[in-house]
């Protein structure tokens, strides 16, 4: 069952000379889905998006939109509309002329164009701004004008390249909800690119996490956060503590890892089967760690408190264990007292809250 709003990347590789920008991307984006590509900058997200909109040809593989191969379809003939990283609004045109540009090039009459532009301006909650110049608008307003202009194309697929990166924090958070609302109203496929995991997790139906041209995981936001499939995803998405070591034993979906902090147990991610001696990393999120009061936890780490940062809603304690630093965040619930630096603390976590992943691709973390 394919809708004409489906996008299929069929083993797409894009190379610039010897450099591989996108490596064998294979996934299906369903019609009407809000799909995000998340990855550090330079990992090939824009290149992949430009490939979907037709500005870059895949070196290998095919892009299918609505089941049709897009190989020989030029950008102006594709049912996609791209919102550029810098918006690319036409500076010499008024707001209404910008929005009506897709209609103008399709030969729609002046009156009809203006009517449609005004409708779209109402939709993005900017009525009456049609005669303004683009530079007279604020950043957030320009953002919405770019969306309206793209929607005027009546595309099947809207492609957005880090559209919020130029906005300030407040506006960015506001626009997240706005974008999601627009997507649900118009029912289009949104392909959204960002290096900001907060954006990807809050808005998307599904997220693809990319690293140096490779798509490492495609999943719902919760799954990406809770059950990362690679060490890169675990460390790139959200905060995480990493403790590396060697597998001591592995059975029934769990693995025990010998680390400098002691023997620690975690879930063997994706049902992987580890052999004793495999080099692995155990990831445990700061908010899943607890200050231990009793001694009956399976996983216990003892260390010294270096400092504690106060962030309003949470406190983040930095605990030194040998050479490693472990962060633990605690909700500021008004009951817990701040910890004193130099204090000896014992941390505990459930094996279900820790993930054991193979070392591979760890080198690219924080790139």
């Amino acid at each position, binding site marked *: 069952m394919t809708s004409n709003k489906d996008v299929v990347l069929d083993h797409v590789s894009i190379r610039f000379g010897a450099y591989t920008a996108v490596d064998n991307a294979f996934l299906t984006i369903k019609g009407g889905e809000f799909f995000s590509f998340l990855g550090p900058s330079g990992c090939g997200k824009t290149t992949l998006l430009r490939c979907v*909109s*037709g*500005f870059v040809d895949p070196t290998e593989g095919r892009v299918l939109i609505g089941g049709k191969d897009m190989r020989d379809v*030029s*950008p*102006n003939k594709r049912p*996609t*509309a*791209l919102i*550029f990283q*810098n918006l*690319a609004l*036409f500076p*010499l045109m008024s707001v209404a002329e910008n929005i009506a*540009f*897709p209609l*103008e*090039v*399709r030969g729609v009459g002046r009156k009809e164009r203006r009517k449609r532009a005004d409708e779209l301006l109402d939709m993005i909650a900017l009525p009456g701004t049609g005669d303004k110049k683009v*530079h*007279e608008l604020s950043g957030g307003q320009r953002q919405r004008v770019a969306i309206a*202009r*793209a929607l*005027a*194309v009546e595309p099947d697929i809207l492609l957005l390249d880090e559209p919020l990166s130029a906005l300030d924090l407040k506006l960015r958070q506001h626009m997240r909800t706005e974008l999601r609302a627009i997507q649900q109203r118009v029912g289009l496929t949104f392909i959204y690119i960002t290096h900001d995991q907060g954006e990807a997790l809050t808005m998307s139906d599904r997220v693809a996490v990319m690293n140096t041209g490779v798509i490492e995981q495609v999943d719902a936001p919760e799954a990406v956060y809770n059950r990362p499939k690679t060490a890169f995803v675990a460390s790139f998405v959200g905060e995480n503590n990493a403790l590396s070591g060697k597998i001591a034993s592995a059975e029934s979906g769990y693995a025990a890892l010998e680390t400098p902090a002691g023997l620690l147990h975690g879930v063997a991610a994706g049902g992987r089967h580890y052999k004793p001696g495999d080099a692995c990393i155990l990831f445990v999120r700061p908010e899943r760690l607890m200050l231990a009061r009793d001694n009956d936890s399976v996983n216990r780490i003892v260390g010294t408190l270096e400092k504690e940062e106060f962030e309003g809603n949470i406190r983040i304690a930095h605990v030194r264990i040998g050479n490693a630093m472990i962060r633990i965040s605690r909700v500021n619930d008004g009951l817990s007292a701040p910890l004193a630096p130099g204090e000896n603390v014992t941390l505990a976590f459930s094996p279900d809250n820790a993930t054991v992943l193979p070392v591979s691709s760890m080198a690219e973390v924080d790139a």
Partner: protein
Amino acid sequence: MSGSSKSTGGGLFAIGYSLLFFAFLFGPLIIMTITAFNSSSFPRITPWECFTTDWFGALIRDQRLMSGLSTSVGIGIGVVAISVPLGLAGALALSEVSPRLRTALYSVLIIPILVPGVVLGISTIVFWGSVGRLFGGDHGGIFYNGTFLTLAGQVTFIAAYAMLVFIARLQRFDPTLTEAALDLGATPGQAFRKILMPFLGPAIGSAAFMALLASFENYNTTVFTILSGNTFTTALASKVRLGTDPSLSALAVIIIAVTLIGAMINEAHNRRQELLRTGRASRSRLYTNPVTRWLTHPAGIGIILLGCAAALVYAGSEHDSRACRADLIEQKRAVQERLLQEQRQRIEEQKRLQQPSATTPPQPSNNPSPFGGAFSPGGLAPGAAPAPAPSTNPSPFGGAFNPSALAPEAAPAPTPVPSANPSPFGNAFNPGSLQPKP
């Protein structure tokens, strides 16, 4: 800043320097402008003769200059029509090719600017001459036509100028705008016409203007390629070579006036754009008042300035300096008459004096020395010696260095009279005065 420059005296120096600098820049222009209105047939300020506008008329009646002007305008329009599209195409090509190819191509395209105009001129003749021979054209054909050759020669380097203008503008173009247009459904042609061309609009204007000016004022190349014909510039140059008259100053006045009017309109346009762009227009008092709003509009300023110019031209054409010049001629004639009269009187007087003593030496009043007879040794001599009369001594030093005046000293003088000693040092160096008196 002003405090420190005050204390160091730098302010005064800066003002003085600026004044000098402006005098250096504009002095020649101002003086030239003034000479255009002096009736003197050589361009000069002093002596001021009559205020006249006749030199403008003389300029317009100059057949050679005027036919050169029409040739220049024709060539200029042709050059603009060819080199602007060529330059644009070159700039677009450069922006499309890969960086390495771009550097090479850029160097090639820029060469015509670096080659001396003289070389371009000669090579244009030679090249088109051989093309003409190749096609077997006779010497009346287009390849031997001065206007065509000038057009061809000028386009070679003016197209490169135009290209530089477009490259500068294109560098500020955001290529994602074209991509956005394509993505929104525009064909490449539509994207070019609706996005890139409007952006290049101002550059097209300035490239065309620059091409027109460059064509108009070109001499080095044109002087060869125009062959036996004349453009305005070459006609002007040959006119100057034959000797200049104030009609050239009149031409300078016209050019300065046109430039000033153009500059003012342009400035008004820029200020207005700036006001509109920054959105200060609504707050500016000039813009809220409809009268001043219209007056500061470039078109308004243009109309006012052109009106002023037209009024001045009309007033100038009505001005008649004939009366003044007739007066002047009358005055000159009177002066000459008077001089003639004096001369005649003098001759008469001389004749009268010469009749009684024809042998007397010339009158002291005829002494040509600027010091009159004051230093004339003869004037000091108590007894007038016979000939030669010292008063005819033409030296301004009154014979002080006249060797013949010293001669009596060297030889035993028959009557050495100290007071007659012509030496400016009195007797101090007179060897005779040291000798024991015999």
